[in-house]
């Protein structure tokens, strides 16, 4: 289950945000603070999480202190679902 969430997130980020389908994204790598996911795409990520996992992330939470890596985002999803 956990791995499935992580893979889905990694796929979504590689395909839809970075437009680099071939790319592997490490589950620990910083997404927001590194600028890999830029501020324009944060809302896309939040909308995806909501549609795919039924978990709401408030816009005030879209920053590196709420989650920065796929691991952390997965924890958040599991905690709320």
């Amino acid at each position, binding site marked *: 289950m956990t791995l499935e969430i992580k893979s889905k997130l990694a796929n979504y980020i590689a395909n839809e945000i970075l*437009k680099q389908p071939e790319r592997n994204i490490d589950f620990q790598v910083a997404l*927001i*603070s*590194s*600028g*890999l996911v830029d*501020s*324009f795409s944060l809302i896309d990520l939040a909308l995806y999480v909501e549609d795919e996992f039924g978990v709401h992330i408030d816009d*005030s939470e879209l*920053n590196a202190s709420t989650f920065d890596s796929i691991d952390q985002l997965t924890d958040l999803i599991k905690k709320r679902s």
Partner: protein
Amino acid sequence: MQTFSHILKHHFEVDPDRVCLYILQTNQPDYPITYRDLIRGAAGYAKTFENNGIQPGEVIILILQHGIDLVYAYFGAILHGAIPSIMPFLTEKLLPERYRADLASLISITRPVGIVTYKEFDDVVRSALLPGDSVRKIFISAEIDPPCDPEFGRLHGLKRISGDVVLLQHSSGTTGLQKGVALSHQAVLNQLESYGTELGLNEKDVIVSWLPLYHDMGLIACFILPVLLRIPLVLLSPFDWIRAPYRLLQAVSDYKGTLSWLPNFAYNFCAQKVRDRNLDGVDLSSWRAVINCSEPMYLESHLAFYERFKGIGLKHGALATCYAMAENVFAVTQGGIKEPIMIDEIDRDGLQMENIARGALPGKPSVKIMSAGKPLAGVKVQIVNNKGKTLSDRKIGEIAINSNCMLNGYYNRPDITEKSFLNGWYLTGDFGYSVQEQVFVTGRKKDLIIVGGKNIYPQDIEQLAMEVSGVHPGRVVVFGVTNEELGTEDVVLIAEVHTEDPEERERISDLIRQTVTRGSAIALRQVVMVGKKWLIKTSSGKIARQANRKKYLEELGINS
């Protein structure tokens, strides 16, 4: 009234209880500020500047987040007769070292005497200072004198004259920060007068904005104009808006907003990312003009925006266009207010290959271009060829302007100021054509890239990428490519590398992305690794950006 300070004094005396602006921040109650609050808050800053020996006419840099401190500090500098300039705040992804380097380059050219910032940012600012530079004092916002009644008899701002420089505007990045546009009271007030007339400003107007104040559209149209002309302003933070674009629409509905300015990408962004549940009870029927400005404008973006929000009161006639630049204070032309936006369907080959905007031909590909409207009163526009000769209607050339609201000059840069004018006409670096009085903007002569309304100088990004090991110095090119879905430009970087190994190339490409993002806060959409001698150079050995852009689109763009 000849200066900003005279106008502020008048508002303070005549209408002190009127709300001047509302500051909206996520998870905080809306915060109204009256003219009394504004001028008292600003007077606290002016007093502090006075007590610390800041002289009228000296430059003060403001490094503050969007909010009340920034508003008070800005007008405090003005009441003191000093010249404010806002520097973007450090974002979490930008490396502090890089920020320091940018700040140091700003200081070296602009020679400010004071910087206002927060206590927790004091160290970063201090580390950018060099022995013997111009900065005499760093002001900490929490240590500024509290708001107080102004002593108008002693305020230096009231002794300034209309030709004096009132403010500086910089665009971002190393290159932008070394080119401060210096504007006089007279130039700004002339712009406000003619722009206010063109917009048909009236007592029902309310401006709603999320735009950053360090950019001309945010600073002039959505800050200075409303405050000086007494149009209520509802100010959201760009940081909040980008995470929740619906907040703009809710604010328009809550405050019966009538006017907003948006860069083109924001039309797409709102149309695509706002959910229905965030529109419950939202009514946009008060919006009389949503003005597209500061990056290339697309009809498709207007249509997407209109389709998405027409059901909640958005009027088609509210869609408007504008062509603006800091060098002209702000607006050069305005369209869609007094008459609908003119849409010109022209032959694509004529546009792309012959520099002619002729009407569409049957059976041939065509392009629909939105007019940016007609020049404001006091502004003249002509289209010129590369020898400065005026071109007739429908011939594409460089847009040149001459107005009563031009910049005094680039601050401390007489060299580039002189180069920007030809026989008294300011050469904008934008390409376009005119049809009678209507002005159409078709492209840019400069290599400048505009993403989401933000100006990006490719040389700044190329410089960063060349620092990455494995990249050949001088063998990097950066340019913009239109992204129709986003309604803005994508930044593409191509680097020549020696290695053919795909894994090694991916490693270098990741490192470039990281270095560029952390060095400039710009996200690259595509990073392409190519082999030796792929890039086209000019005869003088420089990388030819436009030629490489063309090559990229022909050879590689298809796979993007």
